[in-house]
């Protein structure tokens, strides 16, 4: 075989492998979306039906009107949005302040605090289910979205600080010093100089926290009894546990839950990697 032909063959093999990886990755998601639009006789069948023919909007309509456990899916989407957005906004303030402290100042306990941040990230969130559940109950926060908000702030904060400090440290110190020389106060400097430069990092960190909170299942399952207060993952968990599972509706709801996450993923795809890995290796 000529070298050129060999090269072409090698290239074709690589592209073939690429297509196989693509199909393996996308097929389950494609299948979920497909089922959301398939009539029931094309869902509950042993035949392989590659796409809905004809597609139906029945399931989508059903999750909005009849809903899950007597509540329209709007309710769960709203609950999830309230919890995730509040937790992210509150968490962002705490994270920005703490990240500024560890990235901009050298002070006693700085090292201890950073090591603490690292260690608490190793503690599995599921291990704290019992004490946090009891604490929420004592404070009257069980069965409240507020309880979930507070807990999610706690669960996401260590990683947010850890990731955000690299963004703060990346802003040249000289900019702030110049601002001080011009007579600006500490607060003005923070707000007018540091904040705009850290904002992209803050957005990336917040999107991370948003995805974590949006997907959070264990605490939503444990803390919330009132079905009207379920978040999307909890509602889906309830839905799938029912005796006769309505797969078309579940897949429709699951697809809806995934849309915001997918959009955010595409937005921060590059930072996902540098954030998780670089944030963890290099400070």
């Amino acid at each position, binding site marked *: 075989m000529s070298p050129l032909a060999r090269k072409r063959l090698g290239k074709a093999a*690589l*592209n073939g492998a*690429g297509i196989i*990886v693509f199909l393996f*990755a996308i097929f389950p998601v494609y*299948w*979920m979306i497909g089922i959301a639009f398939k009539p029931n006789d094309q869902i*509950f069948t*042993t035949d392989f039906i590659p796409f809905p023919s004809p597609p139906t909007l029945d399931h989508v309509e059903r999750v909005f009107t009849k809903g899950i456990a007597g509540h329209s899916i709007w309710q769960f989407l709203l609950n999830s949005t309230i919890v995730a957005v509040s937790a992210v906004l509150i968490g962002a303030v705490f994270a920005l302040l703490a990240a500024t*402290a560890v990235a*901009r*100042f*050298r*002070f006693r306990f700085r090292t201890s605090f*950073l090591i603490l*941040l*690292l260690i*608490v990230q*190793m503690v*599995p969130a*599921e*291990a*704290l*289910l*019992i*004490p946090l*559940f*009891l604490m929420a*109950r004592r404070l009257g926060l069980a069965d409240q979205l507020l309880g979930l908000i507070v807990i999610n702030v706690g*669960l996401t904060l*260590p990683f947010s*600080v850890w990731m955000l400090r*690299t963004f703060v440290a990346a802003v040249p110190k000289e900019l*702030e*010093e110049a*601002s001080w020389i011009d*007579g*600006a*106060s*500490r607060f003005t400097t923070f707000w007018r100089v540091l904040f705009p430069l850290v904002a992209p990092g803050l957005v990336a960190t917040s999107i991370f926290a948003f995805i974590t909170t949006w*997907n959070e*299942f264990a605490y939503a399952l444990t803390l919330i009894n009132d079905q009207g207060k379920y978040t999307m993952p909890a509602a*889906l968990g309830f839905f*799938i*546990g029912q005796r006769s599972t309505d*797969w078309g509706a579940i*897949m429709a709801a*699951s*697809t809806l839950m*995934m849309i915001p*996450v*997918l959009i955010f*993923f*595409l937005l921060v795809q590059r930072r*996902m*990697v540098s954030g998780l890995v*670089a*944030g963890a*290796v*290099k400070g």
Partner: protein
Amino acid sequence: MAHTSTTVRGGGHPSAPSRRRRAPRGSGLPDWVVPYGLLLPGFLVIAALLLYPLYQLADMSFYDVKLKNIRPVNPVPPEFVGLDNYTKIFDSDLFWPALRNTVVFALVTVILTIALGTLVGLLLHRLGPKMSTFVVIGAMAAWATPPTSQAIIWKWLFDSDAGVVNWALNLLPDWLSNLLFGMSDWSGHPWLNDASTIYLALIVSVVWGSFPFIAVSVLAGLKSIPGELYEAAKMDGSGPVTTFMRITVPMLKPVFSVLIVLSIIWDFKVFTQLYLMAGGTVNREAFNLSLWSYAEAFGGGANVKMGLGAAIAVVLTIILLIITFVHVRQIVKTEDVR
């Protein structure tokens, strides 16, 4: 990968304040107070929502905490039982299976995820830009799937009647299927009844959901290796295998150590997917440590055993802290945490 942040910061300690620092004007606070003031809110949140609960968890593991001890209206103080909860765990029929499920699942999943992710990362590095973007978009879909959806999708793919897995296995020629699995008719084959096949489905679904992150990270790592190294190796007559083992692997080592630790943390405590695929807490053989802890504390209806659940969670936490200790120490050594 790491270069994104280090190049910006130029390595070293650029954030260290210079000796003769110019003080901002108009700030009434003494300098040394400022960092503590900034840190305090975040520290209080972590203390209240992570450290104090961690203490409570450890404390509770020495008590017998029943429903009457935690009811909102006049609760009875729980009874101190010393190490009873721990002896109960280690004597329980559920302990070894749960520990085995936890460890074997994490081990297999981490190995498969890292292996598949690395292969895909290497593949992406060699593909043309268009094809590479195409594959990354596909991988992004798997990666972005929330754990709940992930469990739901794979539960359906592994369904005994309408599942695509059984349909695909039925496509195999009978002799091959018999040779590989000892059976040829997969119609109605149940996957989600037995613990062993539940974990098989769980491994497939978790590997599917987490290999993209590894692949994209490895790709970023590969891109950060300077091309001169490969040219030099080529000039010295190094073959592809030697080059890979002597240049690519050592250069990617720091990336891998992080990826492995992150994967271990994620896979060791898998809860959402297991809970949904195993159908809640009904299948006791399918428990791992986190599901077992949950089942004792919340899964038994009125038969609440919070103390026992807490003790199991303590065991899980200690195992994870031991495994990640080396990693934490490594970061503390190499980072500018000081």
